[in-house]
């Protein structure tokens, strides 16, 4: 167990076979050793990142490049038995990046790691009082031919709402990660905020009404 210990400051595993530091937990590219049991690891550990809401986007980009260089299927052309594995490696890297890059998806994922996730958070659709009614009104306004100026106003507001939610979610995680406040209560509040996100996004999309100019998709 000691060899696979995760350092709190410097995440990443050490290969049991060659002793090198591994950025991608399931596979050591240096000595071609596969660790199938590590597939169940959480997304942060999988790609050697600290488990925090405050991930540096540049660090994610760097991980993408570093790990892709080790596991991308193109590295394994013509190598019997490794090509399929490489597809699944790169797919699991991409999955981790996709979830961890986007702040709301990252927040949701962090919630899913909490002990009370299945019992309290996963199926909660809770929204603030009056939220749904206000959103429905906005949608009706958009569908009912609101003036261009009004549409723009609604769009700007949805954007501002999303920015505010993101800032507040960040604040809650800051408290959680610094050990201030009751983590369970903080997570419940994050849940309540994340539940509003898709409504704001839908309003924003409807107000934008953009379409792909490609002539034949």
């Amino acid at each position, binding site marked *: 167990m000691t060899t696979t210990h995760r350092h709190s400051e410097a995440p990443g595993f050490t290969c049991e076979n060659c002793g090198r530091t591994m950025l991608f937990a399931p596979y050591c590219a240096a000595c071609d050793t596969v660790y199938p049991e590590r597939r169940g690891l959480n997304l942060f550990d999988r790609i050697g990142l600290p488990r925090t809401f405050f991930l540096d986007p540049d660090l994610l980009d760097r991980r*993408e*490049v570093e790990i892709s260089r080790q596991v*991308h299927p*193109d590295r394994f052309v013509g190598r019997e038995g490794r090509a399929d594995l490489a597809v699944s490696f790169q797919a699991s890297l*991409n999955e981790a990046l996709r979830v961890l890059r986007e702040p709301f998806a990252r927040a949701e994922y962090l919630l899913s790691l909490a002990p009370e996730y299945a019992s309290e958070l996963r199926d909660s659709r809770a929204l603030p009082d009056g939220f749904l009614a206000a959103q429905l009104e906005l949608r009706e306004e958009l569908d009912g031919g609101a003036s261009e100026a009004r549409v723009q106003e609604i769009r700007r507001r949805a954007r501002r709402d999303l920015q505010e939610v993101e800032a507040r979610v960040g604040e809650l995680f800051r408290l959680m990660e610094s050990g201030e406040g009751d983590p369970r209560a903080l997570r419940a509040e994050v849940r309540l905020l994340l539940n509003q996100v898709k409504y704001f996004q839908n309003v924003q999309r409807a107000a934008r009404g953009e379409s792909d100019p490609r002539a034949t998709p």
Partner: protein
Amino acid sequence: MAIELGTVSERKEVVVGIDLGTTHSLAAHVRWDGPRVIRDRQGRKWVPSVVAIDEGGSPVVGQDAQARALTNPRGTVTSVKRFMGKGIEDLGEDPSRLPYRVVSGGEAGLVRIEIGGQLYTPQEISALVLKEVKRRVEQVSGLPVRRAVITVPAYFDDAQRQATRDAGRLAGLEVLRIVNEPTAAALAYGLHRKQKSVIVVYDLGGGTFDVSVLRLSEGVFKVLSTAGNTRLGGDDFDYAVVDLLLEGVDAPRRAALGEDPLALHALKVAGERAKIALSAEESTRVQMDLAGSGIAIDREVDRATLEAAIGPLVEDTFRHVRFALNDADLDVGDVDEVVLVGGSTRIPLVRRRVEEVFGKKPHVEIDPDEVVALGAAVQAEQLTAGRQEALLLDVTPLSLGIETYGGGASKLIHRNTSIPCRASEGFTTSVDHQTSVEVHILQGEREMARDLRSLGRFRLRGIPPMSAGLPRVLVEFAIDANGILKVSAREMVSGALASIEVRPSYGLTDTEVEAMISAGMEHAQEDFEAHMLADLKVEAATVVRYARKALRDHGARVADEARAGIEAAIAGVEEAAAGEDRGRLHDAIDALNQATHPIAEEMMNEVLRVTVTGRTVDDVLEGKDSGMKARDVTLG
């Protein structure tokens, strides 16, 4: 030295990069001194992406087929790339306007092309082009070509990539990787050796415009976004010039032109020539005498006039550029490099506007017609020689999902997701004791299944009878590095892996490919028998009409025997068209085509005289610029 000799003798194959283009295809490989386009024994680098079927039912590909497009348009397939992986309803154009016949075939209504009474898939036609590329490289190198990288536009969806890969397999090639054209272009420029940059690839070809935004970081390329117009390119500029040339021609004469494919072609060639000439010069003179249509043209066209005519089309490309940048969350100012691809980027107006819009000089050092093939060769070399400098990371261009109860759609993979990727989602049954569920695979951005492109369906059987809502069906989507999708489904509650029957309605299964390879170009088509007789009669009438017209307009130029032969052959076709014997009618049409050959040649020569000055016939057929000073364009 000894080492070098050793490696040469060990070279047992040529690994190529192939740009399988809409109008032309070409191959390149990496030599000791860098990537080079491969020319055949006649020095030709292009294989026109044109396939014809000759009188004996054998395929003719490339320049030879191109020569036939004029005289036998119905038997000649051009621009097949537009049909790859597409259904009739996806074409977005009226199939009856095509010179050749396309029909709907297979369960998903995929395009099939009919030539000479046989049905071909677009994959098969493309495979013939690839085979010709392969043959020429093998002939000139003396080494077999077994493995290749083939390029596709970045916006190609799963079905189109799948079809391209199938075409490669049908041509006897192991497709190492399907690579995006813009990425290949960036590779050719060696941009992968830069540390970090944002690259825009502006690709204005003969018939299509594509713009892609790539991010490069330490040798890893990633397509961030792509946009474009599949109906905008150099051909439109040619037609803009033709419109200029026809200014002042009255309506009846213009109408007559519509009936005269050769005159139209001559005009298009003249338009193209003038356009090319104006890239180097300020003004050019076009003189044509289209005797058949009673139109005489003598006009001086200057660059400013051309630019005014094509300006709006060029500006339209920047609308797509902005869209692509927007999609990638970037501004014009974030762009570090601009790469120009496609012959139409030689036009000074295009270069000037690109420079103005991006505020920097675009890369133009490599021939914009060759750059994609050269990049594909670089990638092929890297994949096989084990020295991987660049890594290409792609995204899927369209969302993928499955149909849910009530006609909705559930997206499993969203567009612009990095690939390879996997996604799975659990579903359940809606009826008690249901023992099978249908998985309907969909592609696109809309919400309802009916608005989305159907990629295929399969049925998961063997679910133990349970109450509705109890079974847990897990559907998994997996996209590989080439952007090709595999779908599987299993029922989790029963524990046992239920049987899966996958029937992709696009692309081809391995068995189908095997069958096609072994059966060659044989196709079963009993169902089409009646239909085809009717079509053949229509074709007979057209062929007779053209033959009569050719006799009237150009008959004087050929020998008496030839004229008599044509008249006899016309009678033969008319007689056969009155009967029901398809084989006989077919033969009669062939005989007439054969008989009109001398006259067609005469007409072809005449058309070619328009442009042939200073260039070889191949150059003309290849439609490429050899730097000739075409100040005067004359016909007849």
